[in-house]
């Protein structure tokens, strides 16, 4: 009976810890190799909050604090301690540091903190650890009684249930979607206006609080806590549990907690303790088994026993759209044809400008027509912008003014500095010298996510979709000002944000229809073809309602027809008032859609004008066609 109780309490504590880790690692992609020290912090905090001063028991152990505080203060203190411990580590998880370096930093921290606590006795009684930690309410109740222990198990299981409810509420919210997007590609999430530092800090703090609580609950039950209970390797056990159960699925985390730590720590009791075996053999082999399990699962079943669930989003507008006038849509089957369910396919093959015109304003095959009337002055301006990599001047002294409402093309031979220039303008890279003005304001020092929030959005040359999010989720992630896209909003619950969500889904649907990808809305973006992924990226950028869109070769690797469809859609957007700066290699595309066109070579602007003008200038022809 005692044994079953033990199993229940340990299982619930491990489940809590695994849920915290699954939230950090599986959902947000924060690899916290120091997770166990947060549990340790909670356990120690609960211990010194509930213990009497260290002189009380004849001084056989020495520790800080000793406040004899009544239940539930030690448990609350445990959660708070875990959360507070996370704060010093926020510097490791910012924008600059690679995830694997941060993980190494946390691992080393875990090793060192354990060493220090072990060696420095006055702090937390060193190697021997703390003993006779009071159980909750032990003055009022009898902790030795069976009834008390059952009640304890019930409370801990309820707490684990509460933690499950809490992490699920976060994960299934728009905020959770943002976390998963960051996990899939943090640089892109940054460029869409997500503050990585604050997202990761929030995850370290909430995960730390959960870990701390689990430690506090555990120490109340076993009444003792020492450095041997939280060596760095214990974190690996929890990682094994989350990986085996299924990172990214909280049910998997609970399953993993039952399968790994519990079986690991408790299962070995059933191995007959023969006298012939060396004393260290069984524990050593257990560690070997943990290592083998981790490697084998990462190879054979990286998604775990219970894989991440696909979040299918129902689209209210879909039936209506396909029923009404398909002519209002640049309606075509998505490139992976054979799927032509909802959207009309009967448009024929012509990709004339007229088709894109359905998007908004009237006809016209050139863009130049409406442009003379537009306001002059620049919406985005580079002043003497330079970027050096070592001795290479990737961009040197570029001055450029992008007029509002234009689809400006940027061409140049490989290595001309086009992508670097785009990165500088978007804030994903920092200039060595020069200034960037946006709507008249100097934004040179503004980080990428802040620029994104004021309407300056970029796409990337390499595919940058969030692979393990559906197309619809990719779009929704980019939606700005979503009420549910904050920790507070997520905790407030679905009722608080579902209005925003519905509005965003409607908007996303409209964009999907415009690009003819409605049928793929609930497919994983990682499963799409190259061209479709480019579309997802452009659509996602449009969801942010950008004022200025910076596109890095949006048509690279896209079959010509689709490329022209994209071009048509883009000119339509410009007519609606958007400004687009587009890097492109295909001169035919430039001819058809872009005006003006800027030519770069060797880090500098060589010329600009309409394509017709540029063709007259020999130095341009030489740089581009010969160079």
């Amino acid at each position, binding site marked *: 009976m005692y044994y079953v109780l033990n199993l229940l309490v340990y299982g619930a504590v491990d489940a809590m810890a695994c849920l915290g880790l699954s939230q950090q690692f599986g959902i947000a992609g924060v690899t916290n190799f120091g997770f166990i020290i947060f549990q340790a912090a909670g356990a120690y905090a609960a211990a010194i909050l509930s213990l009497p001063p260290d002189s009380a028991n004849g001084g056989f152990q020495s520790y800080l604090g000793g406040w004899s505080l009544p239940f539930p203060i030690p448990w609350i203190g445990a959660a708070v301690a875990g959360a507070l411990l996370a704060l010093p580590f926020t510097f490791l998880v910012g924008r600059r540091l690679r995830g694997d370096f941060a993980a190494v930093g946390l691992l080393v921290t875990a090793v060192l903190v354990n060493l220090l606590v072990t060696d420095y006795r006055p702090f937390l009684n060193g190697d021997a650890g703390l003993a006779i930690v009071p159980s909750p309410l032990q003055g009022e109740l009898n902790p030795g009684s069976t009834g008390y222990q059952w009640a304890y198990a019930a409370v801990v299981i309820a707490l684990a249930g509460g933690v499950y409810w809490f992490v699920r509420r976060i994960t299934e919210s728009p905020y959770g979607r943002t976390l998963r997007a960051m996990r899939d590609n943090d640089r892109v999430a940054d460029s869409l206006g997500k503050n990585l530092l604050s997202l990761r800090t929030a995850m370290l703090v909430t995960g730390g609080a959960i870990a701390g609580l689990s430690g506090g609950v555990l120490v109340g039950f076993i009444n003792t806590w020492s450095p041997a209970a939280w060596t760095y390797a214990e974190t690996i056990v929890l990682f094994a549990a989350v990986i085996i159960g299924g990172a990214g699925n909280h049910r998997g985390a609970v399953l993993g907690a039952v399968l790994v730590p519990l079986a690991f720590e408790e299962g070995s009791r059933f191995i007959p303790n023969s006298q012939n075996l060396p004393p260290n053999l069984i524990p050593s*082999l257990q560690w070997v088994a943990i290592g083998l399990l981790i490697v084998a699962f990462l190879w054979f079943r990286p998604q775990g026993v219970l894989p991440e669930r696909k979040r299918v989003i129902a689209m209210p507008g879909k039936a209506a759209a396909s029923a009404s006038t398909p002519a209002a849509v640049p309606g075509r089957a998505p490139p992976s044809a054979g799927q032509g369910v909802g959207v009309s396919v009967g448009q024929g093959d012509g990709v004339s400008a007229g088709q894109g015109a359905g998007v908004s304003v009237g006809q016209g095959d050139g863009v130049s027509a409406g442009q003379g009337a537009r306001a002059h002055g620049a919406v985005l301006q580079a002043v003497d912008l330079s970027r050096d990599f070592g001795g290479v001047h990737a961009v040197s002294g570029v001055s450029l003014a992008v007029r509002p409402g234009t689809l400006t093309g940027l061409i140049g031979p490989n290595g001309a500095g086009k992508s670097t220039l785009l990165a500088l303008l978007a804030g994903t890279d920092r200039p060595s010298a020069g200034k960037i003005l946006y709507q008249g304001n100097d934004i040179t020092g503004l980080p990428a996510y802040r620029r994104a929030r004021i309407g300056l959005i970029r796409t990337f040359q390499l595919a940058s979709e969030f692979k393990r999010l559906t197309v619809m989720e990719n779009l929704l992630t980019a939606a700005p000002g979503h009420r549910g896209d904050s920790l507070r909003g997520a905790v407030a619950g679905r009722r608080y944000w579902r209005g925003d969500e519905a509005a965003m889904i409607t908007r996303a649907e409209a964009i999907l229809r415009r690009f003819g990808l409605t049928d793929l809305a609930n497919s994983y973006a990682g499963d799409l073809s190259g061209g479709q992924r480019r579309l997802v990226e452009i659509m996602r950028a449009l969801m942010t309602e950008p004022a200025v869109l910076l596109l890095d070769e949006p048509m690279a690797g896209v079959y010509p027809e689709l490329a022209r469809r994209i071009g048509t859609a883009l000119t339509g957007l410009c007519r609606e008032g958007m400004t687009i700066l587009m890097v492109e290699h295909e001169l035919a595309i430039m001819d058809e859609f872009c005006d003006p066109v800027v030519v770069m070579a060797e880090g500098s602007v060589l010329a600009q004008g309409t394509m017709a003008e540029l063709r007259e200038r020999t130095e341009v022809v030489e740089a581009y066609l010969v160079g």
Partner: protein
Amino acid sequence: MSIFLASVGFGLITSAVLAIAAIGFTLQFGVTDVLNLAFAAVMTAGAYVAYWVNVSGFSVWIGLLVAMAACSLLSVLLNVVVYTPFQRRGSSPITLVIVSLGMALIIEFGIEAKVGGIDVSYTMGQGRTFRVGGLILTTVQLVIIGISLVVMAGVHVLLKYSRLGKAMRATAANRTLARNCGIRTSRVITLTWALTGAMCGLAGTVFAIDIGSFGPTSPDLFLVLILAAVFLGGPGHAYGAMLGALLIGIATEVSAAFIAPDYKYVVAFVALLAMLAIRPAGLLGARA
């Protein structure tokens, strides 16, 4: 004053051992892109191989050569059987770090399962004791410093003048581009594992010689020093690792003498976190 000098002496030996390991680790990471946390476990394997040779009646210096060969082979196997398949599948760097941690457990506790938890030491003489301007060093310690200097010079010559070294640098800078330039990158990577594996076995054995007696988990904390040295100099940067090893080795031993022996790792730890926070590219890390 004499305590200071003595601690500098200890520091030099620690630096010498650390430099061998840190250069191996940093080359491994730089060229192959694997942040191999199983490095210390392979070192342990090397130390035990030398021990087994030693207890079979041979000199520990022969054991050292056997350990180098064994660790070289083990590292190549580790790469061919585990890391390369994961990389080929496009696993993220963080997945590889987790895998390497798993391999560390397998190797380290596999050894413990075999040898048990008791510390062992080599049978060897320490040779004469020399006093050099206040420093007190044994012959063995001088030999360790000598080996380390040879390794550093060798790595310098390798990277600067040999074809393989240049191919390694090219592969480190840009694997795809290197392959397109006609460098057989997969062979370069295999050779890198063989070479750094040998350094790992060397480091493991001289580490065990230096600390006197060792057990299966002894090099665990040494990994902290290796990481500190590597990140101080800049990950992937061989000269940075040499500088980092020198600084970390002396700093830890001097602080051990003047603060408390138990806290010598704190210096390394603070250096590591400070570098991660302020300058992840390392002291010499401006270059790629």
